[in-house]
C-alpha cells in the first residue's frame, strides 16, 4: 500500500523490539465484544491511483461548472478568477503539509503570512485588528455575535433582514444554545436601517450586512450611532470581500466588529467550502476575540519574528473559559487570500472591484429594460435582485434550459416570505458582455 512504508520485515522486527507477539496485543484494552477481526464489511478494498482517479473523475464530470456558460450565482460565494501562482504557493509542501505554528522557530513562513493576512484584513475593513481567520463568513458572524454579548455582558442580538439567511440561522443556532435571544428581522431588500429602532438597553449588538444579501449597499453610520447610543455594538457583515475595494469600509462607518467571507479572493467556489472567515474589530475588543492571533516579537538575537499570542483567550489554555472553542481554522485558505491580495494590491483590487461593479451595472441595465422585470436594488455592488411575474424557481429552470444559470431564487433562502418571484443575480469580472446579453435575451424569451 503506497502510503504505508513499513515492510512485513519491519513490522516483525519492531514487534520483537517491543516484545509483543502481534499488533493484537496493543488492542487488548478493547472490550472483546467490540473487537473486529477482518476488514469492515460493505466497503471496497484498496485501489490504485488510476482506479480512484477514474472513480472521482466520473463523479466530477456529472457536475456543471461555473465556467461552462453564462453563470450569475452569488449569494455568499462568488465566481472570480484566481491567478495560477496562488495555487502554486499554497501547494508548496512547506505550507500545505505543516500545522498550526506551535513552534515558531520553524514556522516563520506560516506566521509571517498570518501577520500579513491580519494586516490586510484590518486595512480592508478599516479596523484596528483582525484575527488569523475563522472557518467561513457565517461562523465568523456567529462568533462576532457571541463576542458582542461577552463584551457588553448582554444577551440579545438583532439581525437585519438584509443578512444572508444562512448567516442569520448560523448566528441563531450558535447563540440560542447559550441562552442568547436572537431577533431576526423579516427579509428586506433595502432596510438595514430598520435595525435602528431595535437598539435597546439590553441589546448586545445590531448586525447589519452591506452589500446585503439582495445586493443593496447601505450607509451603516446611523446604525452604528444608534447602537452606540445604547452602548450596544454594531457588527457589520459582508459576503463579498471584493466590495471593500470600492465601498466605504465598515470601520469608517462606525462598526465595532466586522466579519465576512473571504472566499472571493484566492479561493475557488468549491461547492461551499473550505472558505475563509474574516474577523476584525476595534483594539479595545481584542481580548474578547475568538481564534488564533499572530503577533510580532523578537528572537534571542533581537531579530524580528512572529508568534501566536494572546492565547489566554483560547481553549487550549482557558478551556471552559475560552472565548471560543475554535482550534483549527482556515489557514491555507487565508494564505491563498493573502497571496492573491498581495498580487492585487490596492491598485489591482480597486480595478477588480470596479470591473465587478460595472458588470453588475450592465446586468442591471440589460435586465431592467425587459418588460416585466422590476429591479429591487437601487444601490448595489456586484449583485442585484429583481422580480418578475413568474415564480423564480420555474424562471431559473427555464433559463437553465437556455444555457444560462441565472442566479438564486430568494425563496431558497427565505421560504414563505413573499419573495417567490424574486431572483438574486451576481456579476463579476468573469461575466462577459456576451454572457450578459445572453442572459437578457433568454430572460426576454422566458417572460414573453
Amino acid at each position, binding site marked *: 500500500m503506497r502510503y504505508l512504508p513499513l515492510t512485513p520485515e519491519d513490522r516483525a522486527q519492531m514487534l520483537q523490539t517491543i516484545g509483543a507477539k502481534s499488533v493484537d496485543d496493543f488492542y487488548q484494552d478493547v472490550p472483546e465484544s467490540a473487537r473486529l477481526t477482518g476488514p469492515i464489511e460493505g466497503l471496497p478494498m484498496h485501489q490504485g491511483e488510476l482506479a480512484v482517479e477514474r472513480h472521482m473523475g466520473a463523479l466530477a464530470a456529472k457536475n456543471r461548472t461555473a465556467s461552462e456558460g453564462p453563470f450569475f450565482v452569488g449569494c455568499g460565494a462568488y465566481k472570480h478568477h484566481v491567478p495560477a501562482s496562488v495555487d502554486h504557493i499554497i501547494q*508548496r509542501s512547506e505550507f500545505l503539509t505543516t500545522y498550526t505554528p506551535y513552534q515558531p522557530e*520553524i514556522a516563520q513562513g506560516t506566521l509571517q503570512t498570518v501577520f500579513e493576512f491580519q494586516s490586510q484584513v484590518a486595512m480592508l475593513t478599516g479596523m484596528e485588528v483582525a484575527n488569523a481567520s475563522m472557518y467561513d463568513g457565517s461562523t465568523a458572524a456567529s462568533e462576532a455575535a457571541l463576542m458582542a454579548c461577552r463584551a457588553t455582558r448582554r444577551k440579545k442580538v438583532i439581525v437585519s433582514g438584509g443578512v444572508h439567511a444562512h448567516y442569520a440561522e448560523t448566528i441563531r443556532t450558535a447563540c440560542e444554545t447559550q441562552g442568547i435571544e436572537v431577533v431576526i428581522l423579516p427579509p428586506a431588500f433595502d432596510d438595514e436601517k430598520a435595525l435602528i429602532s431595535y437598539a435597546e438597553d439590553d441589546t448586545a449588538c445590531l448586525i447589519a450586512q452591506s452589500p446585503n444579501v439582495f445586493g443593496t449597499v447601505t450607509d451603516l453610520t446611523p446604525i452604528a450611532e444608534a447602537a452606540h447610543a445604547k452602548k450596544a455594538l454594531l457588527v457589520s457583515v459582508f459576503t463579498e470581500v471584493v466590495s471593500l475595494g470600492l465601498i466605504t469600509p465598515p470601520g469608517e462607518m462606525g462598526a465595532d466588529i466586522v466579519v465576512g467571507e473571504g472566499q472571493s479572493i484566492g479561493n475557488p467556489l468549491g461547492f461551499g467550502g473550505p472558505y475563509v472567515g474574516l474577523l476584525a474589530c476595534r483594539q479595545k475588543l481584542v481580548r474578547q476575540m475568538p481564534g488564533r492571533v499572530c503577533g510580532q516579537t523578537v528572537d534571542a538575537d533581537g531579530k524580528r519574528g512572529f508568534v501566536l*499570542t494572546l492565547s489566554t483567550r483560547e481553549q487550549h489554555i482557558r478551556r471552559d473559559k475560552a472565548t471560543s472553542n475554535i482550534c483549527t481554522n482556515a489557514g491555507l485558505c487565508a494564505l491563498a487570500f493573502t497571496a492573491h491580495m498581495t498580487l492585487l494590491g490596492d491598485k489591482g483590487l480597486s480595478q477588480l472591484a*470596479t470591473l465587478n461593479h460595472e458588470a453588475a451595472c450592465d446586468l442591471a441595465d440589460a435586465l431592467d429594460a425587459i418588460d416585466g422585470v422590476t429591479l429591487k436594488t437601487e444601490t448595489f455592488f456586484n449583485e442585484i435582485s429583481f422580480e418578475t411575474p413568474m415564480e423564480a424557481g420555474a424562471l431559473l429552470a427555464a433559463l437553465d434550459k437556455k444555457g444560462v444559470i441565472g442566479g438564486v431564487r430568494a425563496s431558497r433562502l427565505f421560504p414563505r416570505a413573499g419573495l417567490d418571484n424574486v431572483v438574486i443575480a451576481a456579476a463579476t469580472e468573469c461575466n462577459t458582455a456576451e454572457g450578459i446579453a445572453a442572459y437578457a435575451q433568454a430572460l426576454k424569451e422566458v417572460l414573453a
Partner: protein
Amino acid sequence: QKEELIFDIGTTETTGVDLPEPKGRKDRLGGLKRQDGTGLPGLSEPQAMRHYVRLSQKNYAIDLGLFPLGSCTMKHNPRLNEKVARMPGFADIHPLQPQQTVQGAMEVIEQLEDWLKKLTGMPAVAMSPKAGAHGEWCGMAAIRAALIDRGEVETRTRVLVPASAHGTNPATAVQCGFKVQEIAAATDGRVDLNDLKAKLEGDTSDVAGIMLTNPNTCGLFERDIKEIADLIHEAGGYFYCDGANFNAIVGRVRPRDLGVDAMHINLHKTFSTPHGGGGPGAGPTVLSERLAKYAPYPVMTVDKRDGDYKLIYVDDEAELAGTDLKPLGRMCAFHGQMGMFTRALTYMLSHGADGLKQVAEDAVLNANYIQARLKSVMSPAFEGYCMHEALFSDAFLKDSGIETVDIAKGMIDEGYHPMTVYFPLVVHGAMLIEPTETESKAELDRFCDSLESVAIKAKSGDEALKSAPYLAPMRRLDETLAARKPVLRWTSEMSQTAQ
C-alpha cells in the same frame, strides 16, 4: 535570511495582475464609494512568488521530515487528493447552483457519508462541521436538541469531562450551554472509574452527558469504555466521544460498538487531508439512532421518484413534512468542507477497508516502537502498551535543570519538529509523540536516536539546551513580549521606525 513584509517591499501602485480597463461608468453605490484607498501593497508576480517561496522555506513540514505532534496526526498527505480536489467538476461549482447540476458533488457527499457510517457503525452523520471543534459543537448541540425534545434541557446541564481532555472539550460544552464537571485521571492514565461512579451517584437528573476522548489524550484506550457508556446512559445522559484519535482504531473498532452517541471525525487527521498550516479541517459528526434526527441543516435526502439527491437547506415546513427530522439548526452557510470531502473520499478509496485497518495497526505499532526504544532513557508516563502515541513525563529531567521545552527546542536542532509538549495536563512536563503510520522504520530509528541523544544531554544538565535552537531559521522567540505589548498588524509607523 530575513524576508521583509509585503508592506516593506510592495507599493499601492504595483500589481501582479492585468485587468481590462474599466469603462468608467457612473457608480450606483449610493454615495458610498471608498474615498481613501485601502493602502494595500501590491507586488508583481515574480516578487510575490519569491516572497512566498522564500517564506515557505522557513517552515518545517511533513514533506520535510517526521512531524510527531501528538494528538495532531501529521500523516503523509497524498498528492492524488490534491489533484482530485482541483478537478473543475469539484472546484468550480457553486453551493447554490441548481441541484440537478451538482448531482456528482452530492454523490461524493453520499459516498463519504456511507464510509463514515460503516467505519463507525453509526446510522447517521452530520456533514457541515468545519473542523474538529465544530464537530464537537455539533455533537453536543445534538445532545442539547435531544434534551429539549425530552423537556430536560433546563435541568440536564452537567457534562462530565476528564481532566486529560483537550481544551476544546470543556470549551465546547460551555459554548453549548452546559456546565463542565471534571473527572479525575487514574494512575494508569485512564478515567478514574471510581471518581466517575462517585459523580454519578445519587441524583443524576442533571446529567447531560460525558465527553470522552478515545483513545484518550494519553494515547491509551479507555478499557472501561463500555461500562462508562452504560453508566452515563443509566444516568440519562449521552456519550460524546472525541474522535481526534480515531486514526488508532479505524477499521479495528467501531465506536457504535462502544456505546457512543456522537463522535466527530477529523478528516484532516485520520483521513489525510492537509493541515495547511492551521486548517482548513473538517469535522463530520456521526450520530447514534437517538441523535440522528437532530443533525443540522442542510440535510441530504434522495428523491424517491428519480433517485436525485436533494439538500434541505432551511427550516422549510414543506420539505420537512413527512420526515421525523428535527434539525438542531444551522452551523454554517453552506454544506461543509466539500474540498476536504473529495480529498478524504479519495484517500478512503485508495486505502480501502483493508488499508484503513492497516493504517491503524501501523500507527499503533510505530508509537509502541518509539515507546520501547526510548523507555530506558526517558520516562514513559504510564505502564504498558500505548495506542498511536507515546507519552512521556519529565520525571527523567528531575534535578537536571532542563525542562520539557528545552527538549523540544533541542529536537529542532536535530532537524525535527518537536513532539506536543505540556499536554495532556495530567502528566507533568508531558511529551506526547505521535509518529503516524506513514513513517518508515528507518525514519523512526533516526528520530529515536536523535531524541535519545537530546535526552541524555538533558539528563546531564547540558546548559546549551536551554538556549536551543541554534540551527533553526530563528532563535527562541520572546512570547512574553508578544503578549505584553501585542503588535497584531502592520502600521505605516512600523516601517518608518524600521528605516
